[in-house]
């Protein structure tokens, strides 16, 4: 069974890199460019993992995580946030909202796959 991943980021280049990397590793990938779009896609189909950036227009990552966690379908789904080394406060806010873990930016494709593998094993 193919594992599916929803990747949320307002930066097209970042999304591109994530999608390219994950598809190359055999995952099915759904894209969204902000929290609102991501919620819509998450409702229309259940994914196995969500990877979201935190700073986005319309609905930021923290709000997205909080609303996903409130949905029965996503109570236990792993949600990873993209943080920076210095974004400790953001990281805490993300954890409080219900994030599973984080990937520290900047990361390279290998690290992304390693982290995703850790979650979806």
């Amino acid at each position, binding site marked *: 069974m193919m594992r599916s991943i929803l990747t949320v980021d307002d930066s097209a*280049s*970042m999304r*591109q*890199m994530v999608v*390219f*990397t994950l598809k190359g590793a055999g995952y099915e990938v759904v894209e969204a460019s902000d929290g609102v779009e991501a919620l819509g896609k998450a409702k229309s189909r259940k994914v196995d993992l969500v990877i979201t950036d935190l700073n986005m227009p319309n609905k930021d990552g923290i709000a997205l995580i909080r609303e996903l*966690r409130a949905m029965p379908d996503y*109570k*236990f*789904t*792993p*949600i990873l946030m993209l943080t920076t*080394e*210095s974004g400790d406060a953001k990281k805490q806010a993300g*954890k409080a909202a*219900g*994030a*599973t*873990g*984080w990937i*520290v930016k*900047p*990361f*390279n*494709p290998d*690290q992304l796959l390693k982290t995703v593998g*850790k*979650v979806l*094993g």
Partner: protein
Amino acid sequence: MAIDLAQFHQVFFEESLEGLAIMESGLLGLGTGGADPEAINAIFRAAHSMKGGSATFGFTAVADFAHHLETLLDEMREGRRPVTAQAVEALLGAVDCLRDMLGASQSGRPVDRAAVAIHQAALERLLADGAVGATAPAIDRDEGWQIVFSPHRDLFRSGNDPVRIFRELAGLGRLEVDAELGFLPSADELDIEDCYLAWELKLYGKVARADIDEAFAWVEDHCDLAVRPLAELAALAAVPVPPEAAPAAAVQPASVPPPATAETGTKNVGGGSIRVDTAKIDQLINLCGELVITQSMLGLLGETFTMDRLEQLQSGLAQLERHTRALQESVMNIRMLPISFVFSRMPRLVHDISGKLGKRVELRLMGEQTELDKTVIEQIADPLMHLVRNCLDHGIESPHERVVAGKSDTGLILLNAYHRGGNIVIEVSDDGRGLDAPRIFAKAVERGLLEPHAHPPPAQLYDLIFHPGFSTAEQVTEVSGRGVGMDVVRRNIEALGGRIELKTQPGRGSTFSIHLPLTLAILDGQTVAVGKEIYIAPLVSIIESISLTEDKLNTFTGKGETFRLRGEYLPIIRLHEVFGVEGGHAVKLTDGLLMVVEGQGLKCGLFVDNVLSQQQVVIKSLEENYRRVEGISGATILGDGSVALILDIPGLVRLARQERPVQTRH
């Protein structure tokens, strides 16, 4: 990939080099045995950050290597490995190797694989040795960690799952898992969405603590965690420890410091940037504020000016002058770095070389906070290292020789930096055997530099060691005497507008003093007049100015003119001839003044009309604005707006000695 990580490389390299410096000084400070845990921690953190960074940016070779280093340091940090001299040496070697690898990555040259393999093997050997001679006898069985993991009940709600963590741990070593079922409620009270289990895990193998912390990083605020080395348990083996009695040491994930705020533009590798103390920036901002206030005051005064306010105007202008000068000084100050940037390399040098030579040496550093221009710092490093090497090799005696001479068996090398006038003086002194005058004399005669029956004054004799190819080393050692000698040191120092002096006492030691200008942009100059022209001679190269009398003059046909100064015969250069000054200048040598200058250890007299004032001048490059001119090192603009040329003293001295015709253009 769409993400270009290269933009972060420069900061990573800067950070890593700082990290390596921290590691090196920490390792040198460790000595043996009495290791300070905080020092080891600092070294470990530096290695850990480097490993993380290099992995992020795709320098896998560096990351691999740093990983070994980290594991070793981690064991020392945990007290599971003694800090032996052998381990410290291997770690120092590894630091060098890392520095080289980073340099290679930075400049894009291939890494010296052989060297890496050697150092890596040394580290692996150490790691394989286990904790040899450790305080607690470490048996293979005890290599590893005990982890007591009690998740909070809401763990699953964060999307985390203990199974994933265990899977990760199992990838690090052999994992034994024992579940603690004691907290499970009865079936009708049980909420299936909650986590009631706790685990005791045993992870066998050489695993770095940091890797364990990393596995639990996402859940650290959803659980109680205690991690400790199995070796500690071995001591308590008789008493099984129930999990709740385990010390609940909260896991501190090794945090990576945020990258220092350094600009990451497109910079030339190795030099485009400088880190400035924020205090200096604050001072600049304050001064700009003062200037703005003064300017607005003057502006107001100008709008409503009447003669009765002249005094106000004058005091305003005086204020403006003060602020401008202060601003200039502060801007210059930005380029200033403490000399500790260079001094900090010396402990390692002394440690390595004294070890090779079997000498005992104590290095003392003084005046490390003395600041000088970044460019000067960069260029003085090599000459200084050479002088220190020279002290170690030629100056300091073997412990035995020292004891026989009635000294302590440990030699002393002192590096001292201080300001004197507008210059900085850096001294390298040792309490060794001093210069060996008879041997220098013999060598000089052998090389044909002196006549066998000459009786040069000591100063002149000692000066010979700055002569190209002159080395009194009995044999060429690994340390010095490889033909790169004191002549190069002197040349480099003079290229910076400085000079080097030597004092020595047989049996008591030697002192080399380097006098340098604080900055390459400003020069302390002596203005001299030749006809209508004004020239500037660097103050540092002037010995004295004299007026000549007939009896001191000699003219040799075809050899030019010389004059006698305290027993020495020195050549005379008529500046008006060299630079083709037309008319209005003194012709007879007794009419003008003779400025005695020294360049590259050679003296000569410059014939000028008059010596005017001393002033600081800002150097402008002649090459960039015009072209290179023989005998001239640069130009400056005087207070009245006219251009004055700065004399290239070493060049002129060479001219005088070689009698080369100078090409001048008008």
